């Protein structure tokens, strides 16, 4: 029953990424576009899983971090047109700063209150974006003048390799001593404290790391879409989709979150002919997965491997 070694999982994942990186040779730009979005979603979901699956904190506001990253990068580009990499870096840093401001007080409260605090943060950000329309584009959305590249294939590769690197870092972290302490803090904070671990420090670190990757992914995705709107980056439903992706992918697995994200995006595309019904069907399927396979896709994969 030993779980597969960290290096082995990373090697298998790398092999899959390399194979998938040849997709632009064979599939249409439209599908590449979908996958590009799915990969960014995968990073959102992985970052969320680090907080929930390991630190044990349910963050209902992943979009607070993502939105902060996306809008910071976009607004900066709108106002001053610095190099794009600078906008992206600023987006990631802003998400970290926002994450710290949110987490410091939120981590002091216990249980469901942390989740509620993060939920309220999303609403505040959403309202701010709507109200400060001259700066943020308000309800219409923010147009971002620059793009990294207009090539579908290049955008696809950027998203894919960004996801691969983020996944490798988050996964390695989750399997490291720090990941172990995080799990202990998440499961039993009293005991972790009695073993000499500063629980708040570790949870805060997890929040910062989660915020960094969320903000970075948000900023990159904003440049890919060359726009940012409340509906794509901040709305509560986006956050819920991220959470569903992480859970059906397999919580506490980090990498499973990517499978969940691709599943969600692919499904809503395949079911598009159903019109308004499509979201309903996707969510119903997610519910079935959560109820029948609490280990998620990744849990199913690793389980069959262990038996075989």
């Amino acid at each position, binding site marked *: 029953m030993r779980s597969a070694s960290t290096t082995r999982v990373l090697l298998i994942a790398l092999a899959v990424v390399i194979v998938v990186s040849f997709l632009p040779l064979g599939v249409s730009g439209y599908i590449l576009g979908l996958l590009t979005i799915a990969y960014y979603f995968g990073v959102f979901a992985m970052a969320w899983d680090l907080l929930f699956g390991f630190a044990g904190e349910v963050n209902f506001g992943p979009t607070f971090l993502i939105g902060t990253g996306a809008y910071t990068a976009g607004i900066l580009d709108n106002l001053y047109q610095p190099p794009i990499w600078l906008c992206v870096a600023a987006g990631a840093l802003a998400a970290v700063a926002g994450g710290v401001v949110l987490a410091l007080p939120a981590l002091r409260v216990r249980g469901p209150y942390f989740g509620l605090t993060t939920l309220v943060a999303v609403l505040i950000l959403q309202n701010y974006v709507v109200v400060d329309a001259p700066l943020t584009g308000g309800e219409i959305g923010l147009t971002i003048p620059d793009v990294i590249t207009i090539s579908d294939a290049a955008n696809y590769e950027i998203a894919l390799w960004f996801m691969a690197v983020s996944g490798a870092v988050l996964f390695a972290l989750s399997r490291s001593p720090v990941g172990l302490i995080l799990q202990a803090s998440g499961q039993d904070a009293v005991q972790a404290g009695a073993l000499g*671990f500063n629980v708040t420090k570790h949870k805060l670190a997890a929040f910062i790391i989660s915020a960094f990757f969320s903000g970075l992914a948000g900023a990159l995705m904003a440049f890919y879409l060359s726009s940012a709107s409340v509906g794509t980056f901040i709305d509560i439903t986006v956050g819920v989709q991220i959470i569903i992706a992480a859970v059906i992918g397999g919580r506490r697995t980090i990498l499973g979150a990517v499978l969940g994200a691709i599943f969600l995006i692919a499904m809503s595309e395949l079911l598009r002919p159903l019109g308004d019904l499509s979201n309903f069907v996707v969510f119903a399927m997610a519910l079935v997965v959560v109820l029948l396979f609490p280990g998620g896709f990744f849990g199913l994969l690793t389980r069959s491997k262990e038996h075989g």
Partner: protein
Amino acid sequence: MAEHAHLEVDGLTKRFGGLVAVKSMTLNVRAGEILGLIGPNGSGKSTVMKLIMGIERPDAGSVRINGTEVAGWPSHKIARLGAGIVFQHSRPLHRQTVLENIKLALLPDKLTRLLADPQTDERARAIAARVGLSGVLDRRPATLPFADLRKIEIAKAIARNPQVLLIDEPFAGLTSTETAAFSDLICELRDDGRAVLLVDHNVKSVARLVDRVLAMYVGERIAEGTADEVMRNETVRRVYLGGSIETAARPESSFRDRTTPFLEVTDLNVQYGKAQALQNVSIHIHAGEFVSVVGLNGAGKTTLFNAISGLLPYLGDIRREGTSLRGQTAATIARNGIVQCSEGRNLFTDMTVRENLDLGGQHLPAAESAEQIAWLFELFPILRERQKQAAGTLSGGEQQMLTIARALMMKPKLLILDEPTLGLAPVVLEQISKALERLRQTTDITVLLGEQNVTFALPHADRVYVLEHARVVWEGAPVAFAAEMGTGYL
């Protein structure tokens, strides 16, 4: 530093709301010494331990570890200064192996340590060998027996080489062989020069091990000395020892429903897979009667009660006032007045005492509910004092009283009590016992009590059944029990 006791506690006080859990507690444990901190449930001994470890913040007083004042520090700092705790309930990481669980305790509190020290593995294995876990290093905790889970807790606690070691109820749930092995281990830890504080219910369980004993009662120290001295102490004896057994059984012929008893269980059989949990069990209870079912753990008491409550499939017949209960749902049976207080207590711990009671009286009209609560407060005066407190903050005995009181809010015809004394200290038993006695004398309630503790089960009973290995092996009056069964059972 040699002149310091390793652990010095002085004037330590902790209040929870209006309840003073620990009152000006003073104790010292020297290096190479084991101090037993004993006290009945609710005496505050576990709170003392949590205060020392920084899990709860003291309201007043001082805690010094090797001369350093740590009162009010967060627990991770106290841990790093050299204190370790073995919790009563083991809560290992279930997705990790035993070895990884021990390694966890060896990790530094640093965010920058992304790779474990290569020596960590070796040290974890050495600790595992010391506590006797070498054979199961690669197993997951869920697959291990209880004693091994306790060993994991000890291993984690000693991984950081603490100079002060706190152990909560070291032998709870262990067999006598396991207890002996554990005692040896604790002695070794003392002989390494550590200060060890053992917390337990009674002196007997730790007498062999401790150098000194300190007895607590309702937050205060009542005695200190060698195990013998404390056991001889008058106050301690009064707190721990209840009165002698007196029985007040009413003869069976005095009940009016002699021909058709209120509840009649005939040839009851229950299987759990291949195991026979009950075999041809027949018992009956008259209206207004107090019947005790006595039996050791695993004899089938809970199974019998669950069958009566409609929670289990069974063969045989259970009749209430002549009508078979077969086919009725558990909810119907309970609503019609057969109410079970299960072993687990099942209180709503975040709700107040009053809210728990109100919930039990949901189906009653408001006036009747208020009347019932007033009556219950007379039966259990302590609940009146505690009514605004969350149920989870009550001591074990108070929780048990609340459980019984909540069941009584449903105005049961038959009250089934499953092991109400589980884990309770003698002084609490006496309080519950008195309440049951008043209940018996002032109401016409019918009670079916399941107990291991004979001294608790006999005094109130009109009749006694002895359940052994799924069968009723004896039935009779409590006076006859001592003569016919007593020597074998006690």
